[in-house]
């Protein structure tokens, strides 16, 4: 009895039918002639074990428990007069369900054996074509817009060309790293020396993007730790940075 219980503890069943099939095969009994008395007892043993372990149990298990008890009681009752051929084994419906379920369980096993068979084939992904028509309505162009855009591009190109050669060498020879920490000190010194400063002036003479980013992060950091105060000035159309400690 003890060992029986132990083996139960290790098994998780997909449902009451799964559990019953397990019991039937374990007891090596004929599925068409289930010893309902002992199977029911073992079924309840399992439910109790599960309860001991405080595991979640689906209500389906209880429905089946009730069904088993019903069949058991029906079989215990003496049959009244056997009228004709319509005497049906109370277990028949359950047996049919079990057979059904068992057949599908076997098929699931077949599918399981093929689960990775498709892995050796690679299929191309279907290309996504967009067949919806493009909207060409409401298009209006102005020649001067186009010339403007063109001169814009040309002038930018020239500037780039001028600086490109120098820049290219710069990036090879030096790669300055700007630390937020250094910037905090820089900003502090600057504001102490010059008083309130406009936000945009904080970025004067900065050539590299990374330096701007470090400065910006430093400002955020300082505001967070109230080393800096920020105010918006409508007159200057910009933020003004002030020493946070001054304004107590």
């Amino acid at each position, binding site marked *: 009895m003890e060992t029986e219980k132990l083996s139960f503890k290790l098994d998780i069943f997909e449902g009451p039918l799964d559990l019953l099939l397990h019991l039937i095969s374990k007891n090596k009994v004929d599925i068409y002639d289930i010893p309902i008395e002992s199977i029911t007892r073992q079924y309840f043993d399992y439910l109790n074990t599960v309860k001991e372990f405080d595991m979640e149990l689906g209500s389906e298990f209880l429905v089946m428990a009730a069904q088993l008890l019903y069949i058991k009681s029906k079989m215990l009752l003496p049959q009244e007069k056997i009228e004709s051929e319509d005497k049906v084994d109370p277990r028949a419906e359950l047996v049919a369900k079990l057979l059904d379920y068992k057949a599908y369980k076997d098929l699931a096993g077949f599918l399981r054996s093929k689960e990775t068979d498709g892995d050796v*084939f690679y*299929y191309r992904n279907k290309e996504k074509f967009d067949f919806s028509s493009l909207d060409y309505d409401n298009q209006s162009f102005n020649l001067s817009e186009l010339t403007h855009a063109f001169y814009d591009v040309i002038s930018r190109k020239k500037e780039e060309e001028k600086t490109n050669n120098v820049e290219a060498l710069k990036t090879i020879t030096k790669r300055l790293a700007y630390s937020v920490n250094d910037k905090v000190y820089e900003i502090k010194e600057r504001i102490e020396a010059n008083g309130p400063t406009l936000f945009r002036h904080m970025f004067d003479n900065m050539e590299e993007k990374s330096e701007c980013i470090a400065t910006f992060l430093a400002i955020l950091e300082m505001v967070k730790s109230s080393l800096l105060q920020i105010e918006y000035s409508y007159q200057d159309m910009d933020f003004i940075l002030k020493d946070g400690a001054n304004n107590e």
Partner: protein
Amino acid sequence: MVRIMNDIQNIMEAILFAAADVVSTKELSQVLGISDLQVCETVGELQHIYDDGKRGFQILKIGDGFQMCTREMYYEYIRPIIGERRKKMLSPAAMETLAIIAYNQPITKSAVEHVRGVNSDGAVNKLLERGLIEDVGRLDAPGKPILYATTNEFLRSFAIDSLDAIPKLSLEPMEKGPVDGQMKVDFE
């Protein structure tokens, strides 16, 4: 005649390459103006040519159509390029549910639950998520329940060329006579 036959082969090759999906026999026969049987024959010829040359690609039958894919023997060389497939194995519940749907499609969730004897919401959702089954309509019954069927992706990932290739249900003969509420299974 030979030239025309070659043309049809080449066109079919082009279609299957471009589609990158299952192309049904019907679509092919309509476009090419030949019979379904001729479509199958032509595909057979192409398959033969590819197989003989051990070409990198091949044509597989998937459901009621065909699709191009790579030859399995080159799998280990493709894998490092494309990357390892990360596939989670299906849970026993999902696999049981898939088996039931595969054999009885189209089928409602409650019919699946009737066979399994347990709630199957999670399993059905997982299969939908994996694209192994799909919603194919609604049953004309109270509540208009959704009907599910397996997809081409199911055939591809289990390397099954059609639903007919799945072995028949191994139901033991019922000595005591069938009982009401039995599922409809094709015993043949």
